[in-house]
Structure formats: C-alpha cells, structure tokens
C-alpha cells in the first residue's frame, strides 16, 4: 500500500471512503430494489434496464427543466430528474409486473426482454432527441446532486430492514415470496403484494440510475449503467436476500471499483479485468462453497397460478 501516494494519511482514507460510498450508491439502490422484489417472489432481472431508463429520463427531465426556469423554481431540476428517473424505473417495473403477475409470463424471459428494450430504446430516444452524440447535455455543476443520493442509499437499507422486521407489509412480502397460497388463505391478495413490491423495486432501481446521471456524472451517456444492474443482482444473492447484507455486498463491490480507479493512478499493476471480475467471482465462489445458508425465497420465480 505504501506505493499509493498519500496512503496512511487520514485525508486519503476519508477520500477513499467517500469514493467507495459514491461508487456503491447506484448499486445499493438497485440491489435494494432487487431484495424487495425477490423477497416477494419476483425475479427482477430487469434491474439493469430500470437503471438505464432511470438514468436517461432523470438526465432528460433535469435538462429540460433547466431550460425552463419557471418550472425549475418549484423544485430544483435535479430533483425533478430524480423523481422522473424513479418513475421511469417504476413504469418498466409495472410492465414486468403486469406481464408476470397478471399474464403469467415467465419472469426471467420477460426481464431479459425488458433489459433489451431499455438498452435499445434509450439510445434510440436519445438520438432522436439530442442527435448524433446520443447523450444528454451536461447539467450545470451547481445543479447536480452530490451527497443526497448517497444519503438515500444509506438510509433505505435501514428503512427496508425495519419494514421487513416491524410492519405488516414486510410480513406480507415475505409470505408472498415463500408461499403465496398462505396469503390467499389468510384473506390477503398475493398479486397486490407482488405488484407493490415490484413497483417499489422499479422505483429504487430507477433512482439508482438517476444517481448515475445526476450525481456520479453530469449527463446520460450510452450504456452508462455498464452491467451495474447485474452486479446489484449478485449483491442480492451475496447479501442473502437481506437489505443490510445487500448493502454490505454493494459496499464491497463499490470498494473494488474505487480501488480500481486508485490503482490506475499508481505504479502497481493489477489487470483491470481482474477487478472487473471481482464481484461476480466472489458471488460465484460463495455460491459454490455454499457458505452459510444461501436460501432464496421458496416461491422465487414462480407464477401465481393458484
């Protein structure tokens, strides 16, 4: 570590910790969405797509509002973008929910389709609206979000853990993922519970995307999620379907990403590919060794043909 400039210095570590948090923010938001929907028994393979539309629409709205100061005075452009991103993720989640819960489509195939849809639609729309660059214009430095998404990402796991631990909804979601029939025989509707979980999951993933285009950078650019939705999915598994576990996994993955950037600036050579593999490698290794109980919710991936 001595070779890294300034290591040992308190400022360096603070800096490093902050960049870990920044890197982990989109992952945490998406992973929490993943935890919520998987707990309810729906595999949200479309996290990646939800993040991407979230990132795109957040940047789009923030930029458009910035052009119209009258609108912006009501709410900062970045915040308009933040909510737009969340809603965009929710819309995609609504499609997923409709197809898998109401139409009994296979969750995984549908999720794959929605991912491809987002990956295709965002560039098409960006190109149609902003022309050849295919990315949105930069937001003003002052208009960007800075620490706010991170705060949301750090508080959400706690809220979600509390939700599962103490509230009625949390109990229902857990039952929907374990055995939806039990919900039905207790006079509740499994479909409603699953819809709720999937929609919120889309909201969180959309926010994850928004944090990419509003805080981590100043604009949307093509394929900017770069597989983060899938890393989030890995974090859900590694975190054993628990909000705090997923958060820890995301922090670990965020740290590797931050480390990668630090290392590039130094003389130590670690192939970047190795660091790129790390999140997946760790998750596969943990799955292979079966450390602890890796039990997914029992009705995960099953439709509601009751």
């Amino acid at each position, binding site marked *: 570590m001595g070779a890294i400039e300034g290591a040992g210095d308190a400022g360096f570590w603070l800096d490093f910790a902050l960049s870990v948090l920044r890197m982990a923010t989109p992952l945490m938001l998406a992973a929490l969405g993943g935890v919520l929907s998987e707990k309810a028994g729906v*595999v949200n*393979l479309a996290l990646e797509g939800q993040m991407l539309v979230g990132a795109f629409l957040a940047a789009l709205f923030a930029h458009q509002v910035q052009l119209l100061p009258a609108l912006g005075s009501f709410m900062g452009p970045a915040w308009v973008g933040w909510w737009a991103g969340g809603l965009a993720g929710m819309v995609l989640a609504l*499609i997923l929910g409709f*197809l898998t819960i*109401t*139409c*009994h*489509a*296979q969750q*995984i*195939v*549908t999720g*794959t*389709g*929605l*991912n*491809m*849809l987002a*990956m*295709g*639609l965002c*560039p*098409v*729309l960006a*190109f*149609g609206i902003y022309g050849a660059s*295919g990315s949105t214009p930069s937001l003003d430095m002052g208009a960007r979000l800075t620490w706010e998404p991170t705060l949301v990402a750090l508080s959400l796991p706690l809220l979600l853990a509390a939700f599962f631990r103490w509230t009625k909804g949390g109990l229902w979601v857990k039952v929907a993922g374990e055995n939806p029939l039990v919900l039905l025989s207790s006079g509740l509707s499994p479909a409603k519970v699953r819809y709720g979980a999937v929609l919120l999951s889309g909201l969180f993933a959309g926010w994850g995307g928004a944090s990419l285009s509003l805080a981590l950078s100043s604009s949307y650019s093509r394929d900017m999620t770069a*597989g983060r939705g*899938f890393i989030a*999915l*890995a974090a859900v*598994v590694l975190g054993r379907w628990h909000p705090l576990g997923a958060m820890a996994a995301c922090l670990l993955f965020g740290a590797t990403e931050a480390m990668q950037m630090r290392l590039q600036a130094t003389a130590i050579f670690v*192939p*970047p*590919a*190795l660091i*790129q*593999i790390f*999140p*997946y*490698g760790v*998750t*596969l290794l943990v*799955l*292979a060794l*079966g450390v602890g109980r*890796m039990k*997914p919710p029992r009705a995960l*991936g099953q439709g509601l043909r009751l």
Partner: protein
Amino acid sequence: MEQHKWEFIKKSLFRASSGLRPVAAAGLGLVLGLLITAALGESPLNILKILWEGAFGSWYSVGMTLAYGTPLLFSGLAVAIGMKAGLFNIGAEGQLTMGMVTATLVALRLEGAPPLLAQALIVAAALAGGAVWGLIPALFKITRGSHEVLTAIMLNFVAAGISSWVVLDLVRSTTTQNPESQPIDQHFLLKPFEAFEGAPVSAALVLGLLLCVLVWWVLKKTVLGYQVRAVGLGGGKAPSVAGISVPRMQCLAMAVAGGVAGLVAVGELLGTAGRFRLGFSPGYGFIGIPVALVAGSHPLGLVLTALLFGALQKGTLDLELETTTVTRDLALVIQALMIIAIASEAGWSPLVRFLRQKFLKAKDREADHGGH
C-alpha cells in the same frame, strides 16, 4: 365422412396455428417497433423500405445479412438447445466469448502449422472453451440448486473480464492501438465466397447450417435427443421414473449448447477478422434468445429466424446512415418487443383461444347446416 374431413382440417389448422403463434408474436414486436419510429417522426413505410433495401438490396447486402446471421445461427442454436433440455441459457454471450478466447490462444500458438490441421484444432478449441463455460451453470444447478440464469449472467461478465485480460495483457496487438489481439496466421483464414461481392460470408455459414441440421437430426432421430427432450418437456417426475438421468442430460445439453455458442469464434476469427477484436459481439448471445424464441426452439426454423435477425441487424445499420433520427439500436428494440410478446403469450393466448373457438364454432354450425 364430410364430418371426418372437417375434423381433420380443424386439427391441422390447430396444429399449424400453435406453431405460428411465436411468429405472430414476432410480427407484433416488429409492428410496435415501427410505431416507435413513427412516434419519432419517420414514416414506417419508408423505414421498412430502407430495412429491406439494406438487407436484400444487392448481393453485397445479402452477403452482409448472411454474415450477420452466421453468429446468430450459433448463438440461437445454443439458446435453443438449452430450452430443449428445459434450461434458459442466457449465458451464450459468455460461452462465445470463451470460445473466442481459447480459439485465439490456440490459433496464435499454431503459427505456421498446416492450415487444415490448424483450422480443425481451432474449431476444437472454440468448442471446448464454450462447452466448459456452458457446463458450469448446469453443475451449479445440479449440485447447489442455484438457478442457471443467475450463474450464467455472472459467468458472462467473468468471461468478458477474462477476454479483455487475455487480449490486452497477454496477446495484445503490437502494430495497432485498437483493443485487439495479434493477428493469426493468414493461411488459416477461410476465404469469403465470391458471389457476395466482398461480403465476409465464409464456410462458417455452411458450418452453422450443417450444425442446425445435425442438431435437428440428433434431437429428432436419436435416443439421446429423445432423452434430452423428455427431460426438457417432462415437468414432473416421468423422465426420472423412466430411468433417464435428469442431471446428466442437463449437463450434456448445456455443454453442447456452450460448445455451439463457442463456434461463433469460427466465423469471427477464421472468417471475418483474423484476430480477437474486443467488443466484436454486439450481444450475439443475447440476440440468440429472440432468435430461438421466435423459431420455437426448432433447429431448422432457427435458420430462418437467424437470417431474419441478421437482416434486421444489417437493415438497421443502413437506417442509421439514411435517416436522421433512427439508430441501429432500433433492432434491439424490435428484438426486445418480440421477446416480450412471446413471453407474455400465456397472457394473451386465452384471448386468441377464445376467438378461435368462436370462429371454429361458427364454422361447425355452418358445417352442421350443410350436413342437414
């Protein structure tokens, strides 16, 4: 007698329509995609025309369509084989990447070897690399119970990481700045067919077509194929009661699927590029999913859909050049819509069944009247 005939017609109609359902879904996807372009202010007819011209306008265009279709033939087949065994092979992308890695490494070692031998070894390497990568999710599923999709997604990323490490750090090209490997021996390259005016259509296409026929034959005519299909179609315990080892069949199918995906390397390494260009695949493995879905996982139907998707790929490239608002990503949108339409078939098929029953009943009544 009349009644009997009508029964027969009804039955064959029924059978044909169940086969056509994915095709109808695919059509729906295409229409929705065109609507999006209309929303962007382009005339859908014009778009269709450009797509057609781009894909089939000249021999060169046809050649390019075939060239784009070739890798889809392999990746679509890889997805379809998985489906036949009841597994969703989302890992074709990783499998073809690993096939490319092993093929490239072997090809670079073989510098100066007799071309035919070298080509055979390269094909074997591609097969092996992909097969290993396909086998891993199956093993995870059998021993640990983890879902094959989850592990395959992660393996896709691991493969991407390994490939960039191999290409950038082990065998990086010394002559160009591009992220690509050293070129392989020129003598190994397959010659493009001359009919296509320089489009890179090589023997890889023939290999792909032969493979489709071979897979069809194995699945349809052999005991092994029978057992794989029984495992894939048997939701209950019937295959294992009958003494067919379900885990073994799943492993086998995934290994073969991975190997077939790995053969994408043949077209790329020996046909088109002669080297490993990072990012050569625009997601062939993922496009393989709609290719297989639209074909209903039928290895021969797959030939058609792979070429169709190749045409879509080529046509949308021209769209990007000829229109101001539409990019090649439209292809992805259309493919995605096709997947969604097919996946949600269960949702809208009750409606279709209802309509069909109404239709058939009306016909029945007519037939009855005719009889009296």
